């Protein structure tokens, strides 16, 4: 006897939406509206006071965005989700909901450059400080926890160096200290990895990347796991104590496994307002419908590229956890059995100058500041996505100046390889190329 609940591929297409509640429309409608009619004064008051569910204003919630939220919650195995205008706003909203001035967070040192700067420069302006720990240094995460630490934050596979965090062990450390773990799972998508099944308490995504795939729309999301019990610790008074903003509501007491999302929406979207547009939510939904088939192709192409790069005379090193000599190989086999993802970092012989020549001479691969597009993308992080980081932070992130970040697309693999051959040929003659 097994439950007849829908499986991943079915949920990718159907979760969060019922045509019968939407005039029979098979496709999710785009509710392009700012606001929603109340039945009467009593109904309006009840909605504003969280006495009943429903929509008030599209900054707080929107029916099209709601479909996306439920779909991602279903795919991640979460109790609730809250979509945002971008992945960065999802991270900011999560930290601002969890922390107060005077709090501290422990953060992996290998993160998207924007996230590093958020923790390094922006959050300290609000009195929230961070300690950075190298992703493989599990014991380092433990040592970095202080009395006022409120969470551990990281990316399972760090950007751009591809080093893995041992999430199950790091989660145990966090939970023993009474704090939650937040994982940015943009690189994996729930197709490859569900952080909530491996100890994480909250997941954030930039949906702009693999989840959408098409590279047309910005979007982010926060997903709650529902297992972190704020009432079992006195570390989070904003979750457990009466909140003046809703007539003395204790979010943890009233909403239990969805308390964090409820607070992030009721307080964060109300006061900060990084809402997702219904059009972009719809665009992302179109991408999620084909998530499984795209991820399969991304991963199979990535494995072929790893093999090609590893054997190429112009390549100094390749970082991808599928390689047997990679320090994360065994952990990746355990945590990422469906594939280690389509992000590859490699070093080009000839350093920064050769790297620049390579990037300027590939034609199929797009040189841009994004990852997870269906198209193959390349960038030189030290001069672009991570360029605002100082030398010390670059070193902590294990980033070298010869590093090229490759996001493998789903084009024909032969075409990608042929394109790279052109790039490598040019990289051997950087001076000649630059004279062109």
């Amino acid at each position, binding site marked *: 006897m097994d439950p007849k609940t829908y499986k991943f591929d079915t949920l990718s297409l159907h979760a969060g939406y019922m045509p019968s509640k939407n005039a029979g429309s098979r496709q999710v409608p785009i509710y392009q509206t700012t606001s929603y009619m109340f039945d009467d004064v009593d109904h309006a008051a009840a909605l504003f006071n969280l006495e*009943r569910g429903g929509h008030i204003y599209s900054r707080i919630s929107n029916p099209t965005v709601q479909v996306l939220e439920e779909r991602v919650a279903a795919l991640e195995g979460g109790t609730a989700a809250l979509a945002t205008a971008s992945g960065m706003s999802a991270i900011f909203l999560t930290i601002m909901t969890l922390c107060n001035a005077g709090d501290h967070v422990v953060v992996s040192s290998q993160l998207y450059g924007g996230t590093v700067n958020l923790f390094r420069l922006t959050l300290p302006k609000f009195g929230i400080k961070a300690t950075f720990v190298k992703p493989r240094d599990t014991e380092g995460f433990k040592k970095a926890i202080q009395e006022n630490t409120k969470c551990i934050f990281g990316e399972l596979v760090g950007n751009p160096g591809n080093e893995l965090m041992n999430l199950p062990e790091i989660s145990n450390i966090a939970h023993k200290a009474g704090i939650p773990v937040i994982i940015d799972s943009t690189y994996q998508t729930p197709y490859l990895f569900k952080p909530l099944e491996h100890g994480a308490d909250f997941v954030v995504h930039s949906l702009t990347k693999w989840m959408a795939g098409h590279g047309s729309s910005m979007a982010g999301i926060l997903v709650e796991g529902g297992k972190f019990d704020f009432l079992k610790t006195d570390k989070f008074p904003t979750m457990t104590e009466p909140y003046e903003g809703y007539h003395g509501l204790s979010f943890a007491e009233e909403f239990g496994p969805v308390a964090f999302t409820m607070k992030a929406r009721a307080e964060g979207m109300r006061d900060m307002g990084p809402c997702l547009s219904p059009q972009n939510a719809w665009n992302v939904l179109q991408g999620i419908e084909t998530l499984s088939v795209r991820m399969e192709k991304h991963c199979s192409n990535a494995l072929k590229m790893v093999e090609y790069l590893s054997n190429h005379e112009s390549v100094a090193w390749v970082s991808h956890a599928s390689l047997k000599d990679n320090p994360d190989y065994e952990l990746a086999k355990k945590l990422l059995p469906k594939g280690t993802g389509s992000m590859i970092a490699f070093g080009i012989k000839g350093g920064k100058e050769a790297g620049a020549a390579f990037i300027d001479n590939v034609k199929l691969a797009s040189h841009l500041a994004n990852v997870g597009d269906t198209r193959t993308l390349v960038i030189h992080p030290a001069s672009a996505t991570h360029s605002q980081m100082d030398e010390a932070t670059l070193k902590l992130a294990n980033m070298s100046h010869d590093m090229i970040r490759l996001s493998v697309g789903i084009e024909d693999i032969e075409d990608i390889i042929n394109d790279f051959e052109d790039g490598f040929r040019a990289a051997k003659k950087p001076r000649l190329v630059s004279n062109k």
Partner: protein
Amino acid sequence: MKFKVNNKEVFASTGGRPFDKKKPLIIFIHGSGLSHITWVLQTRYFAFHGYSILAIDLPGHGYSEGPALESIEEQGKWISDVIDSVEMKEASLVGHSQGCLIVLECASQFPEKVKSIGLMGGAGAIPMNPELLDLAEKGDSKAVDLMMDWAHGPAGHFGGHPVPGLHHMNLGGSIVVNGSVKNALGVDFRACDNYKNGFEAAKKIKCPAINILGDRDRMCPVKAGKKLAENIENSEVEIIENCGHMILLEEAGKSLEILKKFIRKNHPV
């Protein structure tokens, strides 16, 4: 709020307002393995509209001290003890699923304490599937998955939670898993399976009753709910379309409207 019943600590949500003995009391009683969280879309409304609310965690559930009580009869008596413990004379009782059986027992054993009763997804008997019962008693989380599958109607399986962003089945499952599959859900399922006094208890109830049923309920189907209603003298039936067993969440708005009308009439402020 936390208070003592029979010298054991009990947790109850008061719906976001302080408990006030001067206001009429409504006690909300959750279903098997669940907790007060399931009632949030009913309790806050009543709390902010003149009632004192206790959405209780049964012993051994949520934040209430254990162990779980092993029979529906004991649980019915325990609700009467809750009323005494908060120094009130009477209450309206609202139950969901197993909570309905508890309501039947309490209202039949202590008619002087029960002003009106609301039954959501109720039946006079809730026999358990032997395999499901066995899984729950062994603490196997598969029992939770099966329960969530059977308990939810189309909205639960596809989506469309009344509160934007919430996921029906994952939320429901997390309430049970965060508690105890073996010591709460397993004990509850056994108590339901053992309970044979539902219809006799129903016949003794004289206070106003409302039965709110979901037409897609696979755990306590409409037929079973109607049969129970026929055994309660002063009973109404409301059927919600396209709704499974988790009426209080799947159709939170509709069930609240029905309950509002019923309680305002039979237990006015």
